[in-house]
C-alpha cells in the first residue's frame, strides 16, 4: 500500500491468456520458472498446458515447445481442434514445436550407466530452433514407466528443471494426481515455484471442475477453489469473487416499465447498471414484472437478454401477449433475445459461461434471469450464491442493468428472505406478495430496499390487466391500507358518505334560501309599514302648516281691516280684490 512497497519490483510473470487464471495468479505463471499442473484423469491438464502455449504464441508472441510423452503430435492437434486451436498452422508459422517422446520399456534394454542427455538435447534443440519462451512437458511422469533406474531418473529430472530455469523458459509440467500426494511420483518436490491443482468432482450427478493454486512462491494468489470450465474457446476459470469492487456507476435512471412502480421511487426508476431482485411467492406476477422491464428497455431501443429457466420463448411470448406486453416485435427486431433452458441442463458454471458468452456476443444493456431460485436444483446454496455473486459482479462491471426474479416460499417467517442470500448483493429489492384476505387473494408490491434512492414504504396493490400491470391508488381504511373487496367496500362507503354530505349541503342551502326569502318579505312589510307611517306623518304636518298659515293670514287681515265685518265673506272679498 505504501509507495515504497509499490515501488519494489514484482515477480515477473508470464500471462497465460486463459480466462480468469491470470486474475487468480495476479498476472500469470512465474516467468522463466517451472509450474506444475496436477490433477486426476479428465481434468484438462493437457488442454490447459496447450492453451498456455497457444495463447502465448498468438497473444504474447512467445513461441512454445510442447513435448508430449503420451500423445503424438497428430493426436494432440486433432484433440484441440475442437477448441479452435490450429496447432499445425502454428507449427508451420514456427510459433510452436511439437515433439512426441515415445517411451516404451519393452523396447529398451538397460545396461549400465546412462543419463538423459538425449532429452536435454532434444528439448534444447526444439527451444533454440524457434526461440521458444514457453515449454510444456506433458506428462513427464511417463518417463518413470520407461526407465527402471529411479535414482538416475530423479536426479535427471531435478537437473532438467534446473536447466530449464537457467534457459529462462517458462515451463509447465503436467502430472497425474497421486494417492495422498499431489503427483504419483512426487514431482512437486522438484517444482516448487508454482503448483496448480485441478480437480473434477461429481456432486448430485453434476460435474464441477475446480482449480486451486496450491502454492505460488514469491507472489500473492487467490487461495480458494475456483470452478473452471472447458468451453468451446478453451479453459475458462471463474474467480468466485472479483478481487476488486471498483466499477463505475451511472447516475442515469431507467424505468421499470410499470409507471406506478416507477413512482414509488423518488427518482422514478432504477439506476442504470444496478441489479434488481424481484422476489415473491408463486403466481405473484414476477415474470410479468420482469417482462415489463424488458419491454421498456426494448422500447428505449436497448438490447435485452432474457434468460428463462421455466418457460419456453414461445410460451413466454404468448403469456405476455395476454397481459398486453407484446414482446414479439422486439424479438423480431433483434432487440430482445430470449434464451430458454432447463436449469438441470447444465452445471451452474456452464450456465454462467453461457450467460457470459451471450452477453459478450449480444452486448445487451439489460439482462433478466427468471428465476434464479430454480438454479438451486443444480447446485448447493453456497454454489448458487457463489455463482450469482460472480454474475452480479460481472454485470455491474459491464454496466448492465440486471433483473433477477426469485421464488420464495410462502411461510410467514421467511417471506422476505431469499434462499440464495443474494439480497445483500443486489441494489434494489422489490417484493411482490399475496395479500390474502377473507375469500380473496390480492397482489401487493413493495420496495424492500433501493440503494441510493428514497422510496415509498407502502405496499401497493396492483392488478394484472390485459393492458399490463396497473398499480391501484392507495386507499386508507380505518385499519390502514385496504385492498381488494375491502377496497371496494371502502370506496362504496366513501361514496355513500360523500352523497350524504352533498345532500346535506344542498338541504342547508335550501334552508338558507328560505330564510333569506322570509327575511326579505319581512323587510318589505316593514318598509311598507314605515312608508304608510311616513305618509301619515307628512300629511298631518302639511295640514298643520296649512292651518298655521291660515291662522297667520287671518291675523294679518284682522290687523289690516279693522272696519271690515268679520264674516265668511271676507276671504272671498280678499280674493276678488287681488
Amino acid at each position, binding site marked *: 500500500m505504501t509507495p515504497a512497497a509499490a515501488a519494489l519490483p514484482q515477480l515477473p510473470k508470464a500471462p497465460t491468456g486463459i480466462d480468469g487464471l491470470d486474475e487468480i495468479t495476479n498476472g500469470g505463471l512465474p516467468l522463466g520458472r517451472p509450474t506444475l499442473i496436477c490433477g486426476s484423469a479428465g481434468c484438462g491438464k493437457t488442454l490447459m498446458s496447450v492453451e498456455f502455449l497457444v495463447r502465448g504464441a498468438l497473444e504474447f508472441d512467445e513461441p512454445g515447445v510442447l513435448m508430449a510423452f503420451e500423445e503424438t503430435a497428430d493426436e494432440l492437434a486433432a484433440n484441440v481442434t475442437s477448441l479452435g486451436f490450429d496447432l499445425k498452422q502454428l507449427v508451420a508459422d514456427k510459433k510452436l514445436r511439437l515433439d512426441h517422446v515415445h517411451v516404451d520399456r519393452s523396447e*529398451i*534394454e538397460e*545396461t*549400465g550407466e546412462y543419463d538423459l542427455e538425449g532429452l536435454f538435447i532434444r528439448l534444447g534443440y526444439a527451444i533454440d530452433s524457434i526461440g521458444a519462451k514457453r515449454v510444456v512437458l506433458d506428462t513427464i511422469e511417463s518417463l518413470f514407466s520407461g526407465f527402471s533406474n529411479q535414482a538416475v531418473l530423479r536426479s535427471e529430472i531435478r537437473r532438467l528443471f534446473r536447466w530449464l530455469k537457467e534457459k529462462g523458459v517458462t515451463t509447465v509440467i503436467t502430472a497425474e494426481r497421486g494417492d495422498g500426494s499431489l503427483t504419483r511420483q512426487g514431482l512437486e518436490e522438484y517444482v516448487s515455484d508454482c503448483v496448480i491443482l485441478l480437480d473434477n468432482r461429481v456432486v448430485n450427478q453434476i460435474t464441477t471442475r475446480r482449480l486451486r493454486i496450491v502454492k505460488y512462491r514469491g507472489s500473492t494468489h487467490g487461495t480458494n477453489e475456483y470452478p473452471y470450465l472447458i468451453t468451446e474457446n478453451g479453459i475458462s476459470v471463474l474467480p468466485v469473487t472479483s478481487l476488486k469492487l471498483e466499477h463505475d456507476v451511472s447516475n442515469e435512471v431507467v424505468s421499470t416499465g410499470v409507471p406506478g412502480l416507477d413512482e414509488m421511487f423518488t427518482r422514478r426508476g432504477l439506476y442504470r447498471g444496478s441489479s434488481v431482485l424481484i422476489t415473491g411467492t408463486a403466481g405473484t406476477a414476477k415474470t410479468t414484472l420482469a417482462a415489463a422491464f424488458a419491454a421498456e428497455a426494448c422500447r428505449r431501443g436497448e438490447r435485452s437478454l432474457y434468460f428463462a429457466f421455466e418457460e419456453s420463448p414461445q410460451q413466454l411470448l404468448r403469456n405476455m401477449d395476454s397481459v398486453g406486453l407484446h414482446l414479439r416485435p422486439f424479438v423480431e427486431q433483434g432487440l430482445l433475445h430470449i434464451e430458454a433452458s432447463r436449469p438441470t441442463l447444465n452445471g451452474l458454471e456452464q450456465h454462467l459461461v453461457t450467460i457470459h458468452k451471450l452477453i459478450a456476443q449480444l452486448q445487451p444493456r439489460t439482462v433478466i434471469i427468471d428465476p434464479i431460485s430454480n438454479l438451486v436444483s443444480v447446485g448447493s446454496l453456497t454454489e448458487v450464491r457463489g455463482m450469482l455473486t460472480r454474475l452480479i459482479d460481472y454485470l455491474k462491471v459491464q454496466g448492465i442493468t440486471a433483473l433477477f426474479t426469485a421464488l420464495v416460499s410462502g411461510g410467514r417467517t421467511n417471506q422476505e428472505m431469499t434462499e440464495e442470500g443474494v439480497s445483500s448483493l443486489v441494489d434494489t429489492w422489490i417484493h411482490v406478495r399475496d395479500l390474502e384476505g377473507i375469500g380473496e387473494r390480492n397482489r401487493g408490491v413493495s420496495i424492500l430496499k433501493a440503494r441510493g434512492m428514497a422510496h415509498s414504504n407502502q405496499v401497493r396493490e396492483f392488478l394484472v390487466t390485459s393492458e399490463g400491470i396497473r398499480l391501484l391508488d392507495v386507499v386508507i381504511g380505518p385499519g390502514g391500507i385496504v385492498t381488494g373487496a375491502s377496497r371496494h367496500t371502502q370506496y362504496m362507503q366513501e361514496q355513500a358518505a360523500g352523497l350524504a354530505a352533498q345532500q346535506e349541503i344542498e338541504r342547508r342551502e335550501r334552508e338558507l334560501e328560505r330564510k333569506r326569502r322570509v327575511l326579505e318579505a319581512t323587510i318589505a312589510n316593514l318598509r311598507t309599514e314605515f312608508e304608510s307611517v311616513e305618509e301619515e306623518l307628512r300629511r298631518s304636518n302639511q295640514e298643520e302648516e296649512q292651518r298655521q298659515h291660515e291662522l297667520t293670514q287671518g291675523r294679518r287681515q284682522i290687523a289690516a281691516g279693522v272696519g271690515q265685518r268679520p264674516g265668511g265673506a271676507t276671504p272671498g272679498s280678499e280674493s276678488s280684490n287681488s
Partner: protein
Amino acid sequence: MDEEIWELRLYVAGQTVKSVTALTNLKRYCEEHLKGRYVIEVVDLLENPQLAEGDQILAIPTLVRKVPSPIRKIIGDLSNQERVLVGLDIRPAHK
C-alpha cells in the same frame, strides 16, 4: 540371415566417460560375435541435435539396432555383456 550386415548406431553426446566406455564395449562385442558383418555409426547429438527426435533418443548413450529389424534399443554404457547380447538378440557364435 548370417550374411546380413548389422547396422548399429550409437548415440552419444560429446566424449563423456559413459560414451567412450559404451563405444569400447560395443566394438568388443561386435568383434567377438559379428566379426566382418557389422557397421557402427556413432552419432554425436551435440553436433547433430536434430537427429535425436528420429530415433526417439532420451537416454545417452543409446545403442540402436537398425538392421536386422525390428529396431532395438539399448541404453547405458553397455557394461553388462550378457544384457547387451540379449538386447541385441545376438546368439553367441562360439557356443
